[in-house]
């Protein structure tokens, strides 16, 4: 290209472009006396500050986050029914839930759903979270939400794991014992004890209550496994659950727990393994 | 104390440089090593010229001669290096004792 153009034209272009560039940068240098204000995005002037320094000195000042910001997860444990949907949908497996069948009445959630499970453990590892929001979408009781808190760095990675369960370990042990007793009453052999040994390959032991309400409401559960009935007795009062109508559960996934359900042996503990 | 006392000093250093340069020229196999020896010898000569020129501060014949020697040294180095590069291109060697082939 250099050869095609004349020497003088080339020289002239060179000088002109150098001058233009230097003028441009000098203008920015002068504008560095101004700086943009840390206004939130809903401020009308947010997009009208093209001049001056754009840097926001973050820890000292911050652009306010909108109330609709979706950053850190929060679980309102009082509304959680332990359905495990969030844990299953999570693409990065950052939610670990452990539930215990409740023998007593737990009351209902704020939107009227029956609670049947103690949440012994509800951990979200925010270090793994990819902020996709899928878990909040599948949550039937809308207890799992994303909050506008976005600055929660920690020195220790363990501190990034948020615990939402409201049971102390002792309480959890107590409930577990109760659940076992209730489960053991109708059928003599209890295959697995209270110890939460994970199955091979599964890193997170979790009780799978997912089959529970469904098996109760669905006819095969009733017909095929009468022996399990007592185990569900405390929570089995109402008929069809409202939550079932509320969401579309993949049928393929339901089949396997149901098959387990039909087995004569009661299985208080089913290890959750997410198929992906 | 005049500078005559230094004259012998200059001359001895010059002689030493010349001898070292000659030694390098005689013993180095690498052509560039030989060139370095030549530069040493040229400098030895220049040193003598300048040493004597200080007794002649108004005509400075020695310094002019030294200046011309420097110019010639530049020419010599440039041409010699060009030759060395050429040699390397053709023979893949710069060892002067291997370059004994007239048909290369």
């Amino acid at each position: 290209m250099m050869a095609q153009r004349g020497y003088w034209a080339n020289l002239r272009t060179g000088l002109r472009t150098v001058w233009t560039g230097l003028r441009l940068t000098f203008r920015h240098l002068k504008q560095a006396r101004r700086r943009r204000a840390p206004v939130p995005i809903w401020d009308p002037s947010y997009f009208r500050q093209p001049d001056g320094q754009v840097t926001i000195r973050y820890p000292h000042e911050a652009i306010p986050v909108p109330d609709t910001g979706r950053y850190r997860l929060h679980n309102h444990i009082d509304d959680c029914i332990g359905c495990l949907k969030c844990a299953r949908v999570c693409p990065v497996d950052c939610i670990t839930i452990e539930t215990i069948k409740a023998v007593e009445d737990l009351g209902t959630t704020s939107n009227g759903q029956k609670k049947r499970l103690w949440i012994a453990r509800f951990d979200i590892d925010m270090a793994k979270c990819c902020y996709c929001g899928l878990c909040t979408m599948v949550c039937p009781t809308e207890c799992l939400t994303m909050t506008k808190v976005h600055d929660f760095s920690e020195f220790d990675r363990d501190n990034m794991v948020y615990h939402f369960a409201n049971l102390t370990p002792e309480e959890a042990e107590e409930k577990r014992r109760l659940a076992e007793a209730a489960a053991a009453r109708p059928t003599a052999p209890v295959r697995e004890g209270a110890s939460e040994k994970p199955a091979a390959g599964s890193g997170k032991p979790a009780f799978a209550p997912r089959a529970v309400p469904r098996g109760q409401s669905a006819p095969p559960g009733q017909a095929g496994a009468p022996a399990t009935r007592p185990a569900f007795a405390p929570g089995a009062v109402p008929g069809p659950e409202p939550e079932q109508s509320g969401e579309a559960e993949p049928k393929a996934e339901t089949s396997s727990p149901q098959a387990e359900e039909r087995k004569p042996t009661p299985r208080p503990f089913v290890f959750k393994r997410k198929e992906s | 104390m005049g500078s005559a006392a230094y004259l012998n000093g200059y001359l001895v250093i010059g002689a030493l440089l010349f001898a070292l340069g000659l030694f390098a020229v005689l013993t180095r196999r690498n052509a560039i090593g030989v060139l370095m020896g030549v530069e040493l010898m040229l400098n030895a000569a220049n040193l003598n010229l300048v040493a004597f020129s200080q007794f002649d501060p108004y005509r400075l014949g020695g310094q002019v001669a030294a200046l011309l020697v420097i110019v010639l040294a530049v020419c010599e180095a440039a041409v010699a290096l060009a030759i060395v590069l050429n040699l390397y291109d053709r023979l893949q060697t710069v060892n002067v004792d291997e370059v004994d082939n007239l048909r290369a």
Partner: protein
Amino acid sequence: MGSGMEFFIALLGPVLGVMFVALLVASFIALYTLAAVYAERKVSAFIQDRVGPLETGPRGLLQTVADILKLLLKEDIVPRMADKPLWVVAPFVVFSAVFVGYAVMPFGPELVAANLNVGVLFITAFAAFEVAGLLLAGWGSNNKYALYGAVRSVAQVISYEIPAGLAVLSVVLLAGTLNLQEIVLQQGIGASGPRHLFGLPFLPDVSALGGLFTWNVLAYPHLLIAFAIYFIASLAEVNRAPFDIPEAESELVAGYHTEYGGIKFAFFYLAEYGGMLLVGLIGAVLFLGGWHSPLPNLGPVRLADWTTGPIWGIFWLLLKGFAAVFVHMWARWTLPRLRVDQLMYLCWKVLTPFAVAMVVVSAFWASWR
């Protein structure tokens, strides 16, 4: 033989004096480099709409101090395959080459460490040592990027020495001396001969006026072009952008100082920033009146007289030098890096012919005067 002790005592005074001056200049360069690195960060930040260092010290002023401390405390690593003596000595060679240049720099009337008759040539000559140092660093590192960087750097510096030298020559021809101090003296109220405005004899003599009008660039207007040529060439000689292909990080990691760290790297840094100031000062001395004030005597308002003196001299000269350094930074954060062929095109086909033309003009001017 008995006078050996006395001799050494007699020697001690001057040697200490020289060392004191040298230390003064060295610490000045070190302090200036600290400030210049900070300034470079700030300038680059402001040009890019950022804020630059802010956290360390008030307004980030201690950032470079912290960096220097970090460099000093770093482990001194020598690459296993490096040519150790060359590798170790290279940064100091490069720095000394720059440092020596300050010895002949006139900072004010009577204020020059070594008033050499061949000052201009002296500085040019010692730039050659810098080249040798860079080559040492590149070769000694035993790293292909370092070697490529060094070779590029050497090719570039030697090439650009020609237009720079010719531009300097066009000044020297008119000044009739290689002594930097004399060149400065000619450009101010102290000028001995008549000095006409724009060098034209029919315009009034401004040698009593002083100030801006007696500077070489105004006394001989064609030197403005020579100054531009010199400035561009000096950018290349200190390997600054847009001529920083010796250390083009996208191709060569960091060029000749790829393998260096710690104190040795700090010396390269000192050399780079010291070199920037040095070429700026030389430009100021040759073209912009050196330590002379830009303010002219206006009738009874003797601005030039009032603002001339040792302290003022340092002030004005450093001001001019810092202005040049600022332009270096400004250009660095504006212009993209040149390709190697563009670099050589600029040097040999643009700057050198124009510089030769300036020398010819100067020669005619000098003989016609």
